[in-house]
């Protein structure tokens, strides 16, 4: 026979455990969320100075399309030198978030990976300079090949074609968004 009272007792205990856990997590989230946001902002700013070394200030502007997350106009001595775009593309294990610097001629000045959850040792190698630096100087519609990259192509990371395509896709989105923003600013 099923003991109804027992089921309720056990269910109640599990409910209490789950409720206490969620309370704890909600509290921890409230405390840490602003700090985490601050860290993310700092990281984005640090990455922007890497991908756009010529600029000294970055002003956030309104997004022109839903494809991108954030857009910044990069200035050096008050003059617009390019645009930094934060955008995402799905990789092997979820979104890969990058920041790309694009100069006023539509050329990529640099790419940095802000966050990803790709496989360590394979897709995570996208963080290496040897991969990221390939994007420097490239223009719209960059292609991905396995080896012997041509003029506007990059070499994929071996064993991580999906991640390589995701980063390239995000950079391509950034280039086209940057063109729109530059047109508006100038």
């Amino acid at each position, binding site marked *: 026979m099923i003991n109804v009272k027992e089921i309720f*007792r*056990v269910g109640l*205990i*599990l409910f209490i*455990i*789950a409720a206490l*856990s969620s309370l*704890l*997590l909600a509290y*921890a*989230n409230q*405390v*840490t969320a602003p*700090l*985490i946001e601050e*860290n993310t902002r700092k*990281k984005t700013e640090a990455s922007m100075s890497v991908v756009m070394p010529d600029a000294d200030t970055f002003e956030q502007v309104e997004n022109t399309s839903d494809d991108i997350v954030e857009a910044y106009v990069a200035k050096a001595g008050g003059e617009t030198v390019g645009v930094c775009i934060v955008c995402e593309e799905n990789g092997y*294990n979820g979104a890969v978030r990058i920041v790309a610097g694009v100069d006023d001629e539509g050329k990529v000045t640099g790419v940095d990976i802000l966050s*990803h*959850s*790709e*496989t*360590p*040792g*394979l897709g*995570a190698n996208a963080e290496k300079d040897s991969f990221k630096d390939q994007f420097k100087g490239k223009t719209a519609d960059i292609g991905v090949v396995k080896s012997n990259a041509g003029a506007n192509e990059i070499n994929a990371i*071996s*064993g991580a074609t999906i991640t390589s395509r995701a980063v390239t896709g995000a950079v391509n989105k950034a280039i086209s968004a940057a063109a729109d923003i530059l047109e508006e600013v100038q």
Partner: protein
Amino acid sequence: MKGIEVLKRGLITENPTFVQLLGMCPTLAVTTSLKNGLGMGLSATAVLIASNVIISLLRKLIPDKIRIAAYIVIIATAVTLIQMILNAYLPDLASSLGIFIPLIVVNCIILARAEAFASKNTVGKSALDGLGMGLGFTGALCIISAVREILGSGTIWNIQLYGDVIQPASIITLAPGGFIVLGIIIGVINAIKGRHESKAAGERG
């Protein structure tokens, strides 16, 4: 059972990776370089100790019927908390550990130790068991990842060993290589163990 025995069981005689074959998913996934192996091992050890202690403290309050569900909630909460705290206060460490932290939730070593040990033993012993099993897991990951990094990438701890002369076998860093290396290491360990056992039997007989 003495404390030192609890430690030794996790490290050697009941090594979670080589003997119990637990936590194969993170083992195969992250052992592509020594740095990753060590990072995963140490973060799993920290969670293992914490979850063993909490579950051992609550072992008389949690009814038998819902224990597994309760353990999963507790472990997931602990991991999420650790991830939030790391992201907020130690962002550099958090970004270098990256995906390892959420991966720990699915590491069945933690659930296995909660069920097999922490739910039946005192807090002190459970903490020791967590430490022993965690270090055993870390050691095993380091051995596998060192072999895979040397053979597959031609580096160790990201320092180039060779590669200009001999092309490293990149299959070793891919998924099949994980199975191959793990299988060979377990085979070697079993061969050594078998020899020890037959020697011991010979001495007795």
